[in-house]
C-alpha cells in the first residue's frame, strides 16, 4: 500500500487540517531527545512514523498534544499553532493513544464513556467505538482491569475513537496484539482515514505499516518507504 497509494500532499494536509511539526528540539536531563524532528500527519491518510527504539517517537507524539513542550520548534493543527489552542480543545481535536494503556476503574463501557458528557456506558456510540477498536462481541460490561494487555490496548483505542478526533496518534498500537487482532485494528484505522481522520502510527512493525499506511516517514521527516532494510526494528 505504501507505494501504491500516495497520500495527499503536505499542502493539502495543512489546508484540510492535519498535524504539522517542524524542527522540534527537546532535551531532558542534559540529553538531546529530539534533534530537529519533523512530522506531517495529513487528514484522510494513515502515516507511519518509523524509528528505532529510544529515538523519540513517543516524545514527539506527546509534544503534539502538549503533554510536553519542545524547547524549540513549531507544531500546528489545522494550520493553528498548538500553543494558541487551549490544551483541552487541542486534545479533543487530536486523540493520543499512549504506548502503555492504563485502564480506569469500572467496565470497558465506563472506560470508553469516560470522556463523554451525558453518554452512558451502554450508549450506541460507546458500543460502536468498542467494536471499531477490534473488540467484537459483548465487551462493554467486562471489568477493564481484568483484560489482557492486547484487550486493554484496544479499549484505549476505543476511548480515543469515541471522541471523534480530527487526528488520531497511536503509539505502538500493535505492540500487544496478535496478528489477527492487529489486522482488525489496522482495517479500522484505514476506515477511519477514509472517513477523513488523520492517523499517525508510531510503529516498529514495518510489515504492518506496509499493509495499512499510506506513507511512512522517519523522525526527520524523510521518506521511510524504502527503508525496510536498515530500519527494521531490532526489538
Amino acid at each position, binding site marked *: 500500500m505504501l507505494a501504491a497509494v500516495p497520500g495527499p500532499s503536505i499542502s493539502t494536509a495543512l489546508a484540510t487540517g492535519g498535524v504539522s511539526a517542524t524542527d522540534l528540539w527537546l532535551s531532558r536531563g542534559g540529553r538531546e531527545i529530539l534533534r530537529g524532528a519533523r512530522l506531517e500527519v495529513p487528514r484522510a491518510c494513515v502515516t507511519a512514523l518509523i524509528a528505532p527504539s529510544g529515538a523519540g517517537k513517543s516524545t514527539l507524539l*506527546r509534544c503534539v*498534544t*502538549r*503533554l*510536553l*513542550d519542545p524547547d524549540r520548534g513549531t507544531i500546528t493543527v489545522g494550520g493553528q499553532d498548538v500553543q494558541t489552542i487551549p*490544551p*483541552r480543545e487541542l*486534545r*479533543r481535536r487530536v*486523540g*493520543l*493513544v*499512549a504506548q*502503555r*494503556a*492504563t485502564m*480506569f476503574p469500572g467496565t470497558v463501557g465506563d472506560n470508553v464513556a*469516560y*470522556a463523554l458528557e451525558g453518554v452512558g456506558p451502554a450508549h450506541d456510540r460507546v458500543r460502536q467505538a468498542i467494536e471499531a477498536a477490534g473488540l467484537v462481541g459483548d465487551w462493554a460490561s467486562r471489568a477493564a482491569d481484568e483484560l489482557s494487555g492486547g484487550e486493554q490496548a484496544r479499549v*484505549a483505542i476505543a*476511548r*480515543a475513537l469515541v*471522541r471523534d478526533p480530527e487526528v488520531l496518534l497511536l503509539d505502538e498500537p500493535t505492540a500487544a496484539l496478535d496478528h489477527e487482532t492487529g489486522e482488525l485494528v489496522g482495517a479500522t484505522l484505514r476506515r477511519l482515514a477514509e472517513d477523513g481522520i488523520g492517523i499517525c502510527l508510531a510503529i516498529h512493525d514495518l510489515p504492518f505499516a506496509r499493509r495499512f499506511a499510506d506513507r511512512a516517514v522517519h523522525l526527520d521527516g524523510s521518506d521511510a518507504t524504502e527503508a525496510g532494510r536498515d530500519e527494521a526494528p531490532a526489538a
Partner: protein
Amino acid sequence: MSAQAWTQVAAAFAFAALASGLAWRLKLGLGSGIALAAVRATVQLAVVGLVIAVIYEHPPLAVAFVAAMLLTAALTSGGRLHAVHGSRIWAAVAIGLPALSATGLLLAVGAFEATPQAAIPTAGILIGGAMAATTLTGRRLIEALHDEQDAIEARLSLGDDVRSAVAPLVRRAVTTGLVPAIDQTRSVGLVSLPGTFVGLILGGATPETAARVQLVVLLALLAVELLAGLLIALTIVRRVTEPGAERINPPALG
C-alpha cells in the same frame, strides 16, 4: 523536690538502665542509642518544663512557644516533602491554619480556658496531629504523582483538566493521611488510653473530666487532620501544575 518526685526520676532512670543494660548484654547494638535517647528526653523535658514554668508567669510568651512548635512541625513535615518546591512554607500553612484555628475556636467558645495551661497542650496536640497528616498525605500524593504518570496523561488526553486528572490520587492520599486519626478515634479506650486522658488522670482530674477533654481533643483532631491533608494535597497539585498547559511536572522522588 518532694520525695515522690525523686522516686519518679529514680524509677525512670532505673528503667532506662535496665533496657540499656539488657540491650548491651544481648549485643543488640542499641545500648548507647537507648542511653542517649533517655538523656535527650531528660534534657528536653526538663527544658520544656522550665520554659512552661516561665510562660505560666508571663502568659503572652505562650504565643512564642506555640509559634516555635509550629515552626518545628513545618520544618519536620516540609523536609519530608522537599520534592515540592517551597514545601516548608506550604507545610506551615497546611499545619498552622487548621491547628491554630481550631485552638482559637476552642478557647474562644470557652471549651477550654484561655490560659497557657490549656492553650499550649491543645495547640501542641493539634499541631502534632496536623503534622502527621500533612506528612503522610503529602508523601503519598507525591509518590502517586510520580508513579501514576501514565494514568494521569491518559485522563488528560481524554480532555480532563489537571484537577480532575489527579482527583483520584488526591482522594486516596487524603484518605491515607486520615487513617491513623480515624483508627485512634475508633479504638480509644479499647486499645490504648491516649495521652491527654492519662495526663489528666495522673494530674488528679476526675475520670469524667478526663474523658470529656479527651473527646474534644480527638474530634477536633479529626477535623484538623482532614483539613491539613486537603490543604497540603491541593497545594502540591498547584505546585506541580503548569499554568495554562493542563499538565503536571511530576515531582522527583528522593
